[in-house]
């Protein structure tokens, strides 16, 4: 049976800044511990005829690593982010347009995919794109002793035979939108991780609410 040690179920210090870039329609940075991602959103904007869809907007996601050119690892992450964004955005309100989300890795210290998803959601909010619900993401790591660690650092992720599970959770009913896992784990551990992620997501959604409230606090 997996142990749920209280000391390992701590979300690292997190923070965000919105509207920091002048050119994109929406931009945000999301920082989880030392992992930092910068997101920029352009949309709804012009789309190439080859990529246009007649009744909804086309979502494109680009993840740029800090060193080297983007490879297969970035492409799989882009796929995860794209599917989550497509589920959350109201795409049918903007047919034949494009929504482009660009994510730049500023520093990677574990939980990279989660940080990307959180930054993407804040940037989409900043751009004012209509969404049916917000989403956030939590990463869990299951060590080989069976201990579940939330929001692991890069060092904790690299330990041998650690399973990594990333879930994207939506804000209305805390359902799972997307899951991306590596490593082996039992059905029991999976359900526990999902339950923990749902609990942790409540805090992140409260953070979203607080940052938006703070942002518009000066407007009468």
């Amino acid at each position, binding site marked *: 049976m997996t142990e749920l040690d209280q000391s390992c179920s701590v979300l690292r210090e997190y923070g965000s800044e919105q509207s920091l870039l002048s*050119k994109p329609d929406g931009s945000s940075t999301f920082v989880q511990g030392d992992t930092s991602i910068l997101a920029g959103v352009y949309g709804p904007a012009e789309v190439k005829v080859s990529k246009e869809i007649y009744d909804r907007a086309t979502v494109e996601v680009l993840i740029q690593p800090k060193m080297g050119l983007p490879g297969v690892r970035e492409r799989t992450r882009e796929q995860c982010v794209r599917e989550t964004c497509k589920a959350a955005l109201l795409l049918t309100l903007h047919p034949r347009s494009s929504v482009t989300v660009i994510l730049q890795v500023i520093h990677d210290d574990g939980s990279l995919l989660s940080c990307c998803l959180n930054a993407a959601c804040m940037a989409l909010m900043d751009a004012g794109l209509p969404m049916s619900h917000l989403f956030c993401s939590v990463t869990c790591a299951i060590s080989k002793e069976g201990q579940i660690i939330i929001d692991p650092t890069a060092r904790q992720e690299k330990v041998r035979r650690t399973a990594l599970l990333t879930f994207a959770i939506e804000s209305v009913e805390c359902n799972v939108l997307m899951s991306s896992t590596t490593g082996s784990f039992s059905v*029991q551990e999976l359900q526990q991780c999902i339950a923990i992620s749902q609990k942790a997501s409540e805090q992140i959604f409260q953070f979203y609410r607080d940052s938006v409230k703070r942002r518009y606090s000066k407007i009468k």
Partner: protein
Amino acid sequence: MRDTPLSNCERLFLLKAIEAKKRLDGRQTYDYRNIKITFGTDYGCCSVELGKTRVLCQVSCELVPPKDSRPTEGIMFFNLELSPMASPAFEPNRQSELLVTLNRQLERCLRNSKCIDTESLCVVSGEKVWQIRVDVHVLNQDGNLMDAASIAAISALSHFRRPDVAIQGQDVTVVSPETAEKRPRLFICISYLLVDPCEREERVKDGLLVIAMNKHREICSIQSSGGIMLLKDQVLRCSKIASVKVSEITELINKALENDRKIRKEGGKFGFAESMPKERITTLKRDDAPVEMTDVKETASDIVNRTETTTEVVPSPVLVAMGTAQVGEGIVNSWALDEDEEDEPQTEDRKTGTVSDVCFCAVE
């Protein structure tokens, strides 16, 4: 995506304003915008904000075999990328003229100036040398990318610590980064005619003069583009202004490096997370937050018990003849339908069993 074009009245306004020595944001003709340099958690990572233009640079190194023509020299590799985040006009994987120009200029400035001694990058002559890779990402385009990129590249190179190498006979082991310092001479590019143009002003320009210079007033490279005819004293005047600006910027870089070094020595927190301004209304930070996990185990076991496990029916293989076995019964072949079969009632032909796999294997 295409960028919004500049309207004729905007263009006229800008040109008239420049003639009257007035600039769009109220600066003087030879004033630079505010430069902010921040360093990241790991060595060699630097972010520069020149007004609203934002550039991120990362320096990394790798041990590789050297080039055949130069067995005792290390390799430097520069890569500047115009991120699609910077401007709607930048598309990924597109070799635009701007990208090529910026890359070439950055390379010329840093490589030909020999600001890093490539001989010192050699580990084992002819076998292993350091390859230093400088990646510059442009995050927001608000004019004067060249200057921002060169400031970021130089700051990142100054900040970078190359790992130490221990050589025992044929083995080369790499030790984690020590204070092996490389002091490159600082060369900075200054763009001209109007110092540090912002994005609107850049669109109106006819030509560009870029001077790369170090604080000892040595010019590394001058590039003039746009086909404008410059008089000799104009170029001299530009280089004088460049020397003043370069010394100011060099001081700024050195101060930023000093601050970072001090913070690291004192054990304080450093990195981009710390440099996020806290007083702004658009930022919010939350400390470590514990997650309540009291009834997690119960909810999880509940969900697992509620889902019924599907009973899997796996057909067992039946030995038909020597060397041939059959698993399952298979569905009716629907490829070549004879005309007689179409007349017969369809339902009888389509009845199949629950299993649908036929597997014939030839066993030796």
